[in-house]
């Protein structure tokens, strides 16, 4: 759509700008304030320069939680995106099955995150949980509160349970927008199922899939509540992802300086990835 230049449009944007600025800029400045200073309470501050940043960048603890965070995000993307596409491809296209699938599949998205954690905790308990009990009955030595591998397995399974539906819904919406004429043409040409998928369906889903990957990357990168309730970051620090580690540092130990520096580095990483995705997305849109 060709838009007209109109500077008065700013008046329409002002309410949004004020509300978001109120919530984003003032608290962010507080973080910046803490990141460069040392405080002993009573509003006494001492300038520390970049000391906290150096300390965080060099700390093993930050490297470890950052590593865990990237590993977790890549694993869940690797499972959720193909699985979501596969389910969307097999979903019914008309009839009563459509609303039934949509409503049931959306259920996990609307459960408060700590309830998701609590629910999976109850579900996975080795003695009274269905998952834990069944796995142990099958001969696996499963206990997610004790063993690191089991804790990771449970956290990832929980995230797959929680968020795959979002990928399904997006892919399904993308598939629905394909005109039947494309499929008819493919049939006349005698295209295989695989060719239909790679040549017609996948390109048409490209836009929604970018959004799905972007959203899943961001949300999994800031995951906090669900693993916190499920494992509490344990056993040890095995599932302490970035947000969990950050909250522990800021509110648990009250190391405000390093925590603020870590916040800024954390935010910067998210911003960087977000900018790359956004630029790619806009470039794709401009091409079309």
């Amino acid at each position, binding site marked *: *759509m060709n838009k007209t230049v*109109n500077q008065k449009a700013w008046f329409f944007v002002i309410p949004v700008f004020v509300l978001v600025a109120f919530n984003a800029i003032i608290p962010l400045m507080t973080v910046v304030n803490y990141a460069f200073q040392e405080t002993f309470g009573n509003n006494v501050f001492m300038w520390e320069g970049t000391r906290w940043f150096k300390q965080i960048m060099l700390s093993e603890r930050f490297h470890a939680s950052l590593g865990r965070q990237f590993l977790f995000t890549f694993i869940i993307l690797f499972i959720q995106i193909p699985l979501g596409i596969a389910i969307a491809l097999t979903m019914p296209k008309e009839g009563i099955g459509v609303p039934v699938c949509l409503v049931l599949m959306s259920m996990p998205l609307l459960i408060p995150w700590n309830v998701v954690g609590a629910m999976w905790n109850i579900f996975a308990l080795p003695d009274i949980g269905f998952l834990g009990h069944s796995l142990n009955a099958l001969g696996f030595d499963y206990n997610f509160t004790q063993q690191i591998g089991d804790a990771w397995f449970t956290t990832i399974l929980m995230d797959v349970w929680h968020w795959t539906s979002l990928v399904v819904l997006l892919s399904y919406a993308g598939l629905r927008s394909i005109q039947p004429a494309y499929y008819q043409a493919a049939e006349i040409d005698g295209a295989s199922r695989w060719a239909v998928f790679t040549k017609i369906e996948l390109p048409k889903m490209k836009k*929604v899939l970018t959004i799905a990957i972007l959203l899943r990357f961001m949300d999994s990168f800031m995951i906090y509540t669900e693993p916190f309730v499920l494992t509490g970051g344990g056993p040890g620090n095995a599932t302490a992802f970035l947000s969990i580690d950050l909250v522990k540092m800021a509110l648990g130990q009250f190391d405000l300086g390093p925590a603020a520096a870590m916040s800024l580095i954390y935010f910067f990483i998210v911003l960087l990835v977000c900018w790359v995705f956004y630029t790619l997305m806009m470039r794709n849109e401009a091409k079309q």
Partner: protein
Amino acid sequence: MKKAKWLVPTIYIIFLMLPIYWLLNMSFKTTTEIINTYTLWPQEFTLDNYKKIFTDSTWYTGYLNSIYYVVMNTVISVAAALPAAYAFSRYKFLGDKHLFFWLLTNRMAPPAVFALPFFQFYSSVNLFDTHVAVALSHCLFNIPLAVWILEGFMSSVPKELDETAYVDGYSFWRFFFKIFIPTITAGIGITMFFCFMFSWVELLLAKTLTAVAAKPIAATMTRTASTSGYELGLLAAAGSLTIIPGAIVIYFVRNYIAKGFALGRV
């Protein structure tokens, strides 16, 4: 082949329903049964857990608090986002692209980064432990989302609609409320659904900004889990009840979801 196609969604839905079933199962059991035996369905079916929640004010006020700030946030977000989304979809203005990206970055900001400064900031303006504080803080991620979705819907409405209305002598605001808003009701519905959803499921900020008066249900649950022993049955009942508002909302918007995702670029 035709039969096998039903298999994948069916298995997936069973996988989704299992933990939910387990939660419901637990909520109808007595504490002794939960601790002592492993049963696939309640042997001594009881409604005591639910009774406790509906009679104890610390529990049910939690629900009311949550619903109160979620509704407040949804109304604020959509009301503020409507004109802004219109501006982004119809006009070019100084810094529009940067502003749009800046808004989006706030959707991407990890709430953990903001938890502590929010606490200090809202305490200093005397809004700590109020519904308004939570509703306003959730604007941080809901307003950018609302603008993003609404802009997608508005861009799919041809500009000729606006121009015809002006030729017919409509003033801007009359056109906006009488013609434009009715044409995008589906989009507004979807937007409200997402605002409701993200405000309802968020806990970190809601918990940080409240103590007693505006405590959300989810925080009440966390407290119960840690202080009063391990009342799993009660916890399960409270958890089961938090699923209901979402299920109701999703039932009403089921036909718009797929469409909304496609057009709204969520």
